């Protein structure tokens, strides 16, 4: 204990009482030190572990190209990412020499998310219902169900194509949208000159 009772002395005698010397230690510097160290630790620690987004890409075999061709045009959505946060999408592919209609959009929740949400409406609805019952089932069950719901054959297939001058944030944003909108089938594909041409056509560079 820092504080101790000092025995009273010399009360009875006629001598003048000696000055009472407290044995109490001043703890203020100690507190200062304590808080200094706390501050140091608070500033140097990373309390929040960063989150990660898991992605797996197909191995570099020729499987990929076959896969692409198999995607039904009616289900395919191609997202094009251009420079300066420009974003476009189109449905299907070129048919009989007619270019698909390219629509310009943006990264906001009213832009690309709305479109994807509506395109994947059935899945989103099912997932929302599943989430209501989440508490009733185990973690594993929930995850399995979720994967099952997401990989419905009728769900749209997204092709993500980024131009070289798009930035990393754009890519993460789009991958994020896939998560938000419960889209399980998407692929990051190299952009083709054809797509670049489509972008150029709708938004000619000045």
């Amino acid at each position, binding site marked *: 204990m820092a504080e101790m009772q000092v025995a009273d002395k010399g009360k009875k005698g006629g001598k003048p009482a000696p000055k009472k010397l407290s044995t109490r230690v001043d703890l203020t510097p100690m*507190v200062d030190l304590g808080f200094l160290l706390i501050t140091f630790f608070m500033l140097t620690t990373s309390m929040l572990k960063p989150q990660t987004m898991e992605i797996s*890409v197909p191995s570099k075999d020729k499987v990929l190209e076959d896969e692409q061709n198999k995607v039904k045009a009616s289900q395919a959505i191609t997202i094009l990412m251009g420079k300066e946060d420009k974003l476009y999408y189109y449905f299907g592919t070129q048919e009989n020499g007619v270019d698909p209609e390219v629509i310009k959009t943006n990264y906001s929740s009213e832009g690309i998310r709305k479109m994807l949400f509506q395109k994947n409406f059935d899945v989103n609805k099912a997932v929302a219902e599943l989430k209501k019952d989440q508490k009733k089932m185990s973690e594993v069950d929930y995850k399995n169900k979720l994967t099952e719901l997401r990989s419905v054959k009728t769900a749209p297939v997204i092709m993500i194509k980024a131009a070289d001058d798009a930035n990393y944030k754009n890519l993460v944003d789009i991958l994020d949208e896939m998560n938000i909108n419960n889209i399980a089938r998407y692929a990051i594909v190299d952009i083709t000159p054809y797509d670049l041409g489509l972008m150029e056509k709708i938004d000619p560079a000045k």
Partner: protein
Amino acid sequence: MPKVKVPRKSTTVDMTAMCDVAFLLLTFFMLTSNFVAKEPIVVAIPSSVAEIKIPERDIATVLIDKDGKVFFGLDTQQDRKELLNNLGKSWGIEPAFTEKELTEFSKISMSGVPIEKMRAFLAMKPEARDSKDAALGIPTDSLNNQFKNWMKIARKINPKLRLAIKADQQTPYKVVKGVMTTLQDINENRYNLITSLKQVSTK
């Protein structure tokens, strides 16, 4: 009439309690803390809704800054030591890296120096290593893809290794694509993208 003696009270506040609290908090922070690993460059990571936490062990971090410089970090000193040792051998560095150089390298949590400049880099003072000029980045271009080697060796050292890519928001996609293609080349098909948490409302 006897005077009523008012006991003299000290005006000093008892600091014991305060001190207790301070040290309690201190202990808490010391125990819960994991230090921020020093990174050669500052990157602003993008945010996402992903909620998967990054594992603590067996993680290799690929750091990409906005100029497209690539850095590579392993999480244990032992692994890092072995990495440099093997890198030196595979690159035919003569004479081989000394024990001192290896130890020096193992102290750096994340490094990005072309292997031919590694010796000069390790000879620098620790303060000088932090400077902008020292942060060269690992060459990733197709003619001199040292990053591929780094990754291959790291995988050999620790087969359980998981890969995390930490890139700046403004990194051009071209650079990211380059790194991803390299990873694909050596059959690294699963990796994590490090992001910070963002709240999103879904209608």
